[in-house]
């Protein structure tokens, strides 16, 4: 293999993928072709999600838990609060929650660690996680907690290789997003439901001001600003409000509907909550009935030039450079529009553009990607307990599914480079190095195998001087070129 091909292969594995595993670099010939092939079929799942409940299953469990909690409160009312081994009072309701969902949450988390560590289609997997972060849901919002991981499985994975509109629709109708951005309760101010509620309120005798059912524009705004058009696009507060009206009625099944049976989807359109009448968004009138109104708006957003520009810039920033060349972004946006919003066209345009393979292309690993790369380089089995990994990510500033903002996590170097952050990376490297299987391991050969031409002379020298394999491995994972993806 010539030097240029070797350089491209290392870039494909380390910058586009999740980090090279031992042996992969030597086998990879045509780097763009390797990546392109992964954009045409679903990311491998390796069976890691087998047996996990789907969102509807979680909704049913949640409804049952609510019943149990009510029964528990009735039964335990007046009794003393139980005390744990440490002498501190135990919250019995929290314990019920953990009993119900603890194992599921651990398995969901564990599945993602295993996939990141073992997948043979790391570029496809990287794209999954890119879109997952594009449509960020933050699990510090309690009602969304159970659904972030299922949303990635149900709404992102099936569509990464398809049409953006299909992914957009699946996400915006997913319980995770409907709850995270407060859509589930948004009610049209002139809907049947709101008028009924008003009549009830009018009959109230106590004269206290009461809650009116009405709009919540959170989801509408973030769809326009973050999911599709981008904040630079020309839309107004009026467009947001009009779109929010069209979205009313997009909701999920209530517990009592689940108990009654016959529910087949975790999404439910509620005609009575829907604001009747046409809306005007970006100058176009939408007069479709019911659910179709917001769906038609999403379909237009999905292929809007502003969306193409926004998605292209975000993906190029994620994979190529903090400041991607304008020509690359333009090329990607044009290809996306020409293909009518097909995502593989967007990826192919990125892969065929010289900027993607240029010497200047360089990104800094986020903490999450650093740990993934460490697991892959070291051939570490993440094991069944995801807690230590999740805890490590939390301390590194990137807890899984918890960006605390619908904008998701940043991937810009300046946001992650700081003294304390680098210190913690060294600590993480040591923690990872301790888990690397030692049998027959030559750290210097491993460094050459995963970094290839990216390995610098000084690091090679330091590896040779390391006094123990463990220290050499920590050095490999902590060295500057392992933090960068070139």
């Amino acid at each position, binding site marked *: 293999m010539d030097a240029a091909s070797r350089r491209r292969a290392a870039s494909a594995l380390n910058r586009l993928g999740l980090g090279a595993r031992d042996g992969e670099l030597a086998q990879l010939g045509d780097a763009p072709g390797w990546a392109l092939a992964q954009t045409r079929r679903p990311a491998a799942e390796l069976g890691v999600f087998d047996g996990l409940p789907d969102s509807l299953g979680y909704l049913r469990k949640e409804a049952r838990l609510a019943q149990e909690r009510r029964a528990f409160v009735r039964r335990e009312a007046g009794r003393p609060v139980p005390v744990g081994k440490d002498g501190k009072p135990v919250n019995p309701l929290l314990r019920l929650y953990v009993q119900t969902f603890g194992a599921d949450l651990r398995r969901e988390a564990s599945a993602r660690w295993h996939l990141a560590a073992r997948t043979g289609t790391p570029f496809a997997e990287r794209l999954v996680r890119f879109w997952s972060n594009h449509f960020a849901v933050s699990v*510090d919002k309690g009602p969304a907690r159970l659904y972030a991981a299922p949303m990635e499985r149900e709404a992102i994975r099936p569509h990464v290789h398809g049409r953006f509109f299909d992914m957009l629709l699946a996400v915006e109708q997913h319980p995770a997003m409907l709850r995270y*951005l*407060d859509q589930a*309760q*948004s*009610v049209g*101010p002139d809907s049947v439901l709101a008028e009924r509620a008003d009549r009830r309120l009018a009959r109230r005798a106590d004269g*206290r*001001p*009461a*809650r*009116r*059912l*009405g*709009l*919540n*524009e*959170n989801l509408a*705004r973030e769809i326009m*600003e973050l999911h599709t058009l981008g*904040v630079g696009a020309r839309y107004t*507060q009026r467009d947001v409000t009009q779109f929010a009206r069209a979205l009313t009625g997009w909701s999920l099944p209530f517990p009592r509907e689940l108990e009654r049976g016959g529910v087949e989807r975790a999404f439910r359109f509620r005609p009575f909550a829907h604001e009747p009448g046409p809306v005007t968004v970006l100058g176009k009138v939408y007069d479709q009935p019911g659910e179709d109104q917001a769906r038609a708006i999403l379909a237009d957003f999905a292929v809007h030039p502003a969306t193409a520009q926004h998605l292209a810039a975000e993906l190029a920033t994620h994979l190529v450079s903090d400041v991607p060349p304008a020509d690359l972004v333009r090329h990607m946006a044009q290809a996306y529009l020409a293909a009518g919003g097909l995502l593989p066209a967007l990826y192919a345009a990125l892969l065929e553009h010289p900027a993607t393979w240029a010497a200047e292309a360089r990104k800094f690993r986020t903490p999450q990607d650093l740990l993934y790369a460490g697991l892959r380089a070291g051939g570490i089995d993440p094991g069944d307990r995801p807690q230590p990994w999740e805890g*490590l990510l939390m*301390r*590194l*500033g990137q807890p899984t599914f918890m960006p*605390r*903002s619908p*904008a998701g996590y940043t991937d810009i*170097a*300046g*946001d*992650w*480079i*700081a*003294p*304390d*952050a*680098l*210190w*913690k990376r*060294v*600590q*993480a490297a*040591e*923690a990872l190095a301790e888990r690397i299987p030692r049998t027959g391991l030559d750290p210097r050969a491993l460094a050459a195998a995963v970094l290839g031409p990216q390995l*610098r002379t*000084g*690091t090679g020298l*330091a590896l040779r*001087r*390391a*006094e123990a394999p463990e*220290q050499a491995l*920590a*050095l490999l994972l*902590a*060295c*500057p070129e392992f*933090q960068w993806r070139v």
Partner: protein
Amino acid sequence: MTTRREFLRLMGYSAAAAATLTLWPGITRAATGGDTRLLVLMLRGGLDGLHALPPYGDPGYAQLRGPLALSPSGATAEDGPALRLDATFALHPALTFARQLYQRGQLLPIPAAAPPYWGRSHFEAQDCVENGTAVPDGAQTGWLNRAIAALPGVRGLAVSTVMPLMMRGSVPVATWTPPLPLRVNPILLQRLEPLYAEDARLAAAFADALAGDGASAAPSAGTGEPGAMSAAMGNHVMGDRRRAGPALRGKVKAMGSGGRLPQLMQAAGTFMARPEGPRIGFVEDYGWDTHANQAAILARKLKELDHALSGFAQAAQPVWARTALVVVTEFGRTARINGTNGTDHGTGGVLWLAGGAVAGGHVGGLWPGMRPHQLYQDRDIHATIDFRSVFKGLLAAHMGVSESALATRVFPGSAALPPLGGLLRAA
């Protein structure tokens, strides 16, 4: 651009009414000598100023707020009676320490304040609050870093895993978060040092991480021992770790409960109280975006904020008399509640100043009112104070940044916006 006078006319104020409001004259020098402290606490997500500082005396308030309305004379399902400040304003019932500060003249709430950006995007608004300009990409550095650059010898600290935009810039600033309870092999650090020194982008940050302990990082580094803690935060900024470490360790250990913000604020207070400690600090918090079920969420969050203030005040006790704290959020929220017992993104919000150096004990700013015709776009509190005028006032009087530096470098293009005076106790 509307001038202040036009604005008042527009809002239906008579000259006499305006005169009774706090329109501060020039800058007065702070009474606190040179060694002052300034901490910025940023609440991301958009704190609802109308809930934290309810204008219960405003004729429009109860009507627009419905079941979320708070007042000193009544309690709601979630909250007790609000804590009365004056005939118009009260504090949310969870803000009991804040009320004590107010009574001591050390809390100055400024309602109807906003950054110069009046769009309603979290991210654009936060960028403007942090970069100190009127547009989201107006600067790639933060005004707090540019202020430090104008103050030779002053050190900064961001209590944050990664550098927030407000603290990014040419002056190196330390970051700190509670440490990882892991050991670090000092020899590994020794080996890594020259490798990082060759990396132009990472060299300075890595050197900072090592500084103090240097290449001979104490064997206890990273174990949660005092040496480790200061090493992890780049203790060259923090002064003598041997003296200060144990006190902090005691504090951090004692912070088991009460949320993350009180812990971070207490740590910030401990660092900033040191004689050679950072004089300018930054702390951030999340979770203020209350689109639904606002009363319960804010009851919890405001309690945390109150504990954070008292935790900081306690930890920073030695320098409290010389300290000013600013609590800032990217925007206020809609005057009306939405359909889900919450509020959506708005404009004018509340800015809080607190500390021994602050001339508080009254509500500052210019209250535009919340009758329908007084609202901005029939929806938000009309902002009457530009954040930058408050920041400039503090940096000038409290930290001694020159007005020319403020107008050109710290807040570029803000020469027409005078620093607010009267924020600090006069000499």
